[in-house]
């Protein structure tokens, strides 16, 4: 068990690509931590640097109390589960799980026993003599997990742990992973490009973009109050509506309509300044009749989400998406009105969230959120 601390960790690939740009990050002991971002944002590089498979070009990395910046991967006491699981195809399940112990020169009898026990914990007892090629995707993943667990590392690293599973298995595996991590209590860092996965699994999430961390927080913080428009548009299964607006005395004017100012940034806004008004589709109420302080539009698309419908309105403010419950009839071409929940609306200035904690109220982009 150990915390992971990075201090201005930087990785520049030959050719000048800055994959990691002075990352400062602390993953607490026992935490389930997600690195989230679009492809090419540096999340996998960060994970591989922690594993030791990539050498950092600057900064320091500590696992527990030990500086491991220059330590070879085998001596860092970490275990990694790869996206393709990387199970050795010529070894049986038992041999695969026992391999880390074999490297650590554990006696054959002991490591066989240990491997069988670990595999048993993950429900693999019946498959010990099979080869990876004879297992389903979910079973292969559990073998990879068992192999990682067998050597009792102080840190687990998962690279896209669920991406190789089909949709149904993925949900099952997600619950399984979360339970397993709770039971083992081992510090775990995983990489994903799927925001839903990160929200569901992680204790805390770091949202990354081009080698920097754009926001660090618990899933609910990241979901409710994205620190900038990048995170706002990345998090959430339906992206947040981000509408251009202008601050007025009695509200925020979006496409000629005056929307009430959310309470949080109320005192921090300057009359007449340009802002972005952000509201999630889930927090827009549908009204078939005109309501003051709402966004009007014509229904263009209706997507059935099962328990609800995702409706796209086209109006003066452009396209606005809102979630309407399944019982409300909505037809294409209808006129509809989207009423924002005032307490859930967010205001972004220069791409950064305007918060009450903003000391000057005039903070410029880059000063916050890039930490």
């Amino acid at each position, binding site marked *: 068990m150990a915390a992971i601390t990075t201090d201005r960790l930087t990785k520049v690939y030959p050719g000048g690509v800055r994959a990691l740009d002075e990352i400062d990050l602390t993953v607490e002991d026992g935490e389930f931590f997600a690195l989230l971002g679009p492809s090419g944002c540096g999340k996998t590089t960060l994970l591989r640097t922690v594993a030791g*498979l990539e050498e950092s070009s600057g900064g320091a990395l500590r696992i527990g109390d030990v500086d491991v910046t220059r330590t070879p991967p*085998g*001596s860092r006491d970490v275990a990694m589960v790869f996206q393709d699981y*990387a199970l050795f195809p010529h070894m049986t399940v038992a041999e695969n799980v026992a391999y*880390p112990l074999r490297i650590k020169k554990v006696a054959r009898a002991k490591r066989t026993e240990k491997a069988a026990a670990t595999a048993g914990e993950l429900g693999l007892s019946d498959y010990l003599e099979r080869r990876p090629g004879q297992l389903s995707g979910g079973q292969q993943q559990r073998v990879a997990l068992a192999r990682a667990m067998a050597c009792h590392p102080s840190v687990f690293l998962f690279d896209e742990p669920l991406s190789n599973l089909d949709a149904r298995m993925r949900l099952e595996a997600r619950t399984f992973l979360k339970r397993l991590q709770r039971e083992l209590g081992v510090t775990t860092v995983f990489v994903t490009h799927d925001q839903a996965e990160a929200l569901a699994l992680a204790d805390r999430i770091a949202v990354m973009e081009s080698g920097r961390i754009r926001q660090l927080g618990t899933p609910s913080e990241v979901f409710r109050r994205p620190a900038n428009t990048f995170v706002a548009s990345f998090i959430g299964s339906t992206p947040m509506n981000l509408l251009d607006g202008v601050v007025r005395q009695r509200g925020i004017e979006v496409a000629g309509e005056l929307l009430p100012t959310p309470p949080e940034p109320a005192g921090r806004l300057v009359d007449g300044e340009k802002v972005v008004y952000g509201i999630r589709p889930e927090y827009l109420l549908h009204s078939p009749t005109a309501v003051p302080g709402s966004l009007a539009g014509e229904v263009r698309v209706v997507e059935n989400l099962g328990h609800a419908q995702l409706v796209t309105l086209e109006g003066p403010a452009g396209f606005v998406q809102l979630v309407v419950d399944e019982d409300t009839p909505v037809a294409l071409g209808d006129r509809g009105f989207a009423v924002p929940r005032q307490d859930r609306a967010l205001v972004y200035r220069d791409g950064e969230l305007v918060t009450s904690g903003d000391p000057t109220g005039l903070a410029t982009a880059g000063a916050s959120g890039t930490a």
Partner: protein
Amino acid sequence: MTPPPAHSPDHAPGAVPTASDAAPVAVAAAPAGPPPDAEHRRREAQRAAGRAGARKAVAGIGFYTFVSLVLAFFSLPLLWLAVAPFDANPGLSASLPEFTLQNFRVLWDNPYAMRSLGNSVILAGGTGLLVVAFAALAAYALSRVRLPGRDMLLYVLLLLSSIVTGTAAMVPLFNLATELRLIDSQLGVILVLSGGLLPSAIFILKDFMDGTPRSYEESARVFGASPFQIMRDIVVPVVRPGLATIGVWSVAQVWGNFLIPFLLLRSPDQYPAAVVMYTFYTEGGQANLALISTFSLLYSVPVILMFLFVSSRYGFRFHGGIKR
């Protein structure tokens, strides 16, 4: 072939889809026949079908005749090889033998024949081991480490390799071996042959190595495996079919190589089978067909056995032939 529907007499050239060559006949017959149109046309179609079938049969017979001839062309020498060693007086044609094992007896008593097979095994085995070991290491390194001009290097090596063991390099090779005191030494032959085979072996093996996901090795590295352990535990077992291919291929190459051992070995008791074969003449200077055929049979058996063994063990299909 479905006959056209009876109630559509408008479709006069209805027999056309039967077979292209039958079409003119059907068209020509149509205006001549006022009688029951459909019945007539169906018979016509059947006849056309019959004709097409006959044509197909003739084509089939022609094809199989051709294949048989080709087969005979290649199998007659093999038949000869199977029959001649048991013949008291073999000629150049394959015929029912006057059965005898005398030829084997003579060969057994020949001081060089059996020893040469042993020499061949030493040369082929030594070269095979050397090639597999070095090619595996080199191919792994070339596959995993980015060297500037790596592909160029491989292609140039490949190009030069045919020269190393070829006729063009005979004199320099001889000189080199003399300077290194490797004349009349099996080690010399093994080294030269390995040098000639390595580039192609590296080239082929690199493809196998490239096809092995890096995550296998990275996974092992995170568990603390040393490069040697990774090589032994992961890489070698995963590319084993490739190693088997290279091994069999090198052995077959050396087994059939005449020039290099002939060039570098002086004493007859060092000669491998390919060279000894060359010495079977009668007192009159004629090729001794009885000995040559018998020796050829013995000479080909080990290679065949090796193919069978490796193929059953590793289950790969080896494309390519043995020289000779």
